[in-house]
């Protein structure tokens, strides 16, 4: 009780400090929105957020993909040696299977649209990848086996595709005498689209792998209960 009180007091102080920082904040010296709007025509895309992500601050996005890759690598290294049968994840729900045959084309369409729309309105590689991963998770829950996952080389190629294309495109800028990851102005739009397509595949696969690499353990109480119900 005393510990909780001390913690509450500490957090209240921290909150007050944050609030003070918010009230007493300095005026921004640089007018970033205006600078962004001024530089937008030379970026290759029409949407400022996409331009920030994949042109002006593409180093952040490159590292972000690497962080996702590291998370998947750790999950791959820590997974249990166990047969990974889709029926263990399946919910034995005929409704889900039926709905998936309607939902899957729609989700693929939405993912493609989000990827394409990123050039001129909100959208982009991460949103499209998340929709792809959600489709994969639903398929998995419906008990559908995704056979591509049985081939490790295919999975690994897909996982590193985004980072590899990004790095390759960024390095080619070096050969043209430009800084690393600085796209040539004439080909910026095409390069960004290429990188985004590769990123979508990798991000979708990474998110799906993170879900897929952590199946319920055989001795988890939830699985035991499900199995007992299956026996009845």
């Amino acid at each position, binding site marked *: 009780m005393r*510990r*909780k009180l001390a*913690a*509450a007091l*500490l*957090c*209240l102080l*921290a*909150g007050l400090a*944050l*609030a003070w920082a*918010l009230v007493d*904040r300095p005026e921004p010296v640089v007018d*970033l*929105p205006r600078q*962004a709007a001024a530089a937008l025509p030379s970026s290759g895309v029409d949407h*400022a*957020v996409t*331009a*920030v*992500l994949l042109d002006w*601050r593409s180093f*952040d*996005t490159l590292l*972000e993909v690497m*962080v*996702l890759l*590291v*998370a998947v690598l*750790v*999950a791959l290294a*820590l997974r*249990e040696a166990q047969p990974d049968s889709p029926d263990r994840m399946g919910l034995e729900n005929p409704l889900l299977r039926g709905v998936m045959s309607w939902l899957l084309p729609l989700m693929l369409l939405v993912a493609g649209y989000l990827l394409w729309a990123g050039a001129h309105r909100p959208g982009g590689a*991460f949103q499209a990848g998340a929709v792809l991963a959600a489709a994969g998770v639903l398929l998995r829950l419906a008990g559908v086996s995704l056979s591509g996952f049985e081939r490790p080389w295919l999975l690994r190629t897909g996982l590193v595709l985004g980072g590899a294309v990004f790095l390759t495109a960024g390095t080619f800028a070096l050969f043209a005498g430009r800084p690393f990851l600085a796209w040539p102005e004439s080909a910026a739009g095409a390069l960004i689209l290429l990188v985004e397509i590769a990123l979508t595949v990798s*991000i979708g696969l*990474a*998110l799906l792998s*993170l879900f897929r*690499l*952590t199946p319920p*353990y055989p001795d988890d109480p939830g699985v035991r209960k499900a199995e007992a119900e299956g026996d009845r």
Partner: protein
Amino acid sequence: MSVAAIYPWVGILLCTLGLFGFVVHRHLLRRLLAFNILGSGSFLVLVGLAQDGREADPVPQALVLTGIVVAVASTALALVLFRRWYRVSGQASLPEDV
């Protein structure tokens, strides 16, 4: 005070709540949730400040989008490690915390 100005304040509230949950709870899953609330609060502060008064600033929005992806990755990483720890030790909290 405009309507947009409420977002940073809510973000600060979430940060404080998340910090409190992170300090008080010992269960690793609760700590992970609290940590995510703390992170969401900071995202809200960033995005809220970016559209305060002026037109929306794309740079903080893009930074927050990157931050969300990193938060997703780190949450998944923490869950994987937590499951493994639970599997090995049978405990839901770390020994030095108890």
